[in-house]
């Protein structure tokens, strides 16, 4: 069954991508991803040659803090949530394939979409404002590309597993992003160890030195924490999917 399960991953991943690329969701997320690019154009037009200012004011405040978690929560919760909601998940689960393969396929699909949109947004913004500013600008771009990559897989893992436990995953995910990471983390620095935003910025630190009041974790702390999060949520998702039950229905 292992070989069949591995072979099923691209099939399920492809279906997941087509599902996630619903017209309204795609348009909304493309518009969101365009926000950092538009701000970059404003910076470029104003001839502001400030690597730190752009990194902090746009790539961090807009990209990592808003764009990344919103894209991830929409894709992460929809990867399973939409199929559970409309009942099509049964077509995946009534197959002789291991549940871990279904989770891997969903993770790849949702993470891939999230990473593509957010990294593209950072890359294009960086190319407009930071590329002309020499090595410092290029390093900052690389740092935020890494932050988006790490953040994508961490956020999607968390929101995906959340959608296997509750139908309110989108709401809870937004509360996590806005309340836990937004409001509480600025008041309670200890929350950094339980903040995906901080894992992302911590990894970015390996490429470009962030301001200390933004990134509270070193790369050597952030990366292991991110890996632990992904591994733990993967096992929980697989466990949950193995015990997935359909309702009895009206009959």
């Amino acid at each position, binding site marked *: 069954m292992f070989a069949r399960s591995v072979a099923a991953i691209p099939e399920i991943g492809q279906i997941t991508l087509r599902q996630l690329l619903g017209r309204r969701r795609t348009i909304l997320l493309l518009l969101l991803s365009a926000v950092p690019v538009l701000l970059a154009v404003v910076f470029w037009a104003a001839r502001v040659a400030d690597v730190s200012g752009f990194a902090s004011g746009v790539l961090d405040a807009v990209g990592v803090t808003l764009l990344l978690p919103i894209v991830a929560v929409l894709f992460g919760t929809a990867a399973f949530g939409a199929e559970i909601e409309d009942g*099509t998940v049964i*077509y995946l689960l*009534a197959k*002789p*394939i291991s549940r871990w393969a279904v989770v891997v396929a969903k993770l790849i699909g949702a993470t891939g979409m999230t990473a593509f949109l957010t990294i593209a947004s950072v890359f294009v913004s960086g190319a407009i404002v930071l590329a002309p500013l020499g090595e410092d600008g290029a390093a900052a771009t690389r740092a935020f590309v890494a932050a988006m990559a790490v953040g994508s897989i961490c956020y999607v893992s968390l929101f995906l597993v959340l959608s296997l436990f509750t139908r309110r995953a989108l709401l809870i995910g937004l509360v996590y992003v806005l309340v836990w990471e937004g409001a509480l983390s600025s008041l309670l620095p200890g929350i950094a160890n339980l903040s995906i935003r901080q894992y992302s910025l911590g990894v970015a630190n390996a490429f470009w030195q962030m301001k200390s009041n933004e990134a509270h974790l070193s790369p050597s702390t952030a990366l292991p924490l991110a890996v632990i999060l992904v591994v733990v949520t993967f096992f929980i998702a697989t466990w949950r999917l193995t015990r997935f039950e359909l309702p009895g229905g009206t009959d």
Partner: protein
Amino acid sequence: MTAQIAPDPAPDQNAVAPSPGPSAPTIELVDAARWYGNVVAVNDVSFSLGPGVTGLLGPNGAGKTTLLHMLAGFLVPSAGTVLVMGRSPSRDPSVYRQIGLVPERESVYPFLTGFEYVRFNARLQGLHNADLASRDAIHRVGLDDAMDRPIGTYSKGMRQRAKVAGALVHDPQILLLDEPFNGMDPRQRMAMMDLLGQMAAAGRTILFSSHILEEVERVGTEILVMVAGRLAASGDYRAIRALMTDRPHMITIRSSDDRRLATALMADPAVFAVELGKDLLSVRTAHLSTFRRLIAGASRSAGVRLFEVVSADESLESVFDYLVRR
């Protein structure tokens, strides 16, 4: 499966005893129950099925879908045992090599064409020639002309057929179908019933739920009747009807002289009541077989020619009606 009716009032004895078929059963439930908190969806259900078509009957809320989901491994029984091909279907994905499932909910990936959907199922089943198997399955459900259209553009009946094609593409030993004829027009229903009949003749075990009794009657004579989470009866529906001795059978007769025949029949203690209608004689009797012998002798001795003798309430509708009200 031998015909059995569950004993009437005692709630804890309402289940039908297992009735093993001639060979090892492909589906077996022993005292299976499923409850959600205080709500009992399925209670102490026992039966076994081998190859053939069996209709799972019952009104809304009877527990049909819960039962099918237990058999498909998507609900773990709260008590008792559910076995498919001799093993528990729960938490064992490999069992789906042998099971094809058509769920009640009609949602199917709307962005896929019919062919893509069936091929997706074939590929997840690990079929080597998924394209060929998919075309064959689509042909069997008669969707050839629409296979390249997105499922989102399909009618309800076409979606049902696409679901059936996806469920049988790997030629499963067991096919579980939840209200498979929903949304199909009469011609499509007939074709689907023929297909299920062919699969049963080829040795497959097919269990389908329905609340439309005519569908069950047409596909097969074996039924399981669920009422309020319990198995009220199982077996051949005509035999089940014959076992209902506590309710008289209604026989309608057309003859050359209904009045004279009525007089002859009323003399026999097996006849409860006789009613003369326009060109029709209705008789109530407790024992069908006794009455069949009686009517032959009575008509001969009265010199009356029989044109038609029909057991008016032997239809599945009346069986079902009776069991639900019981």
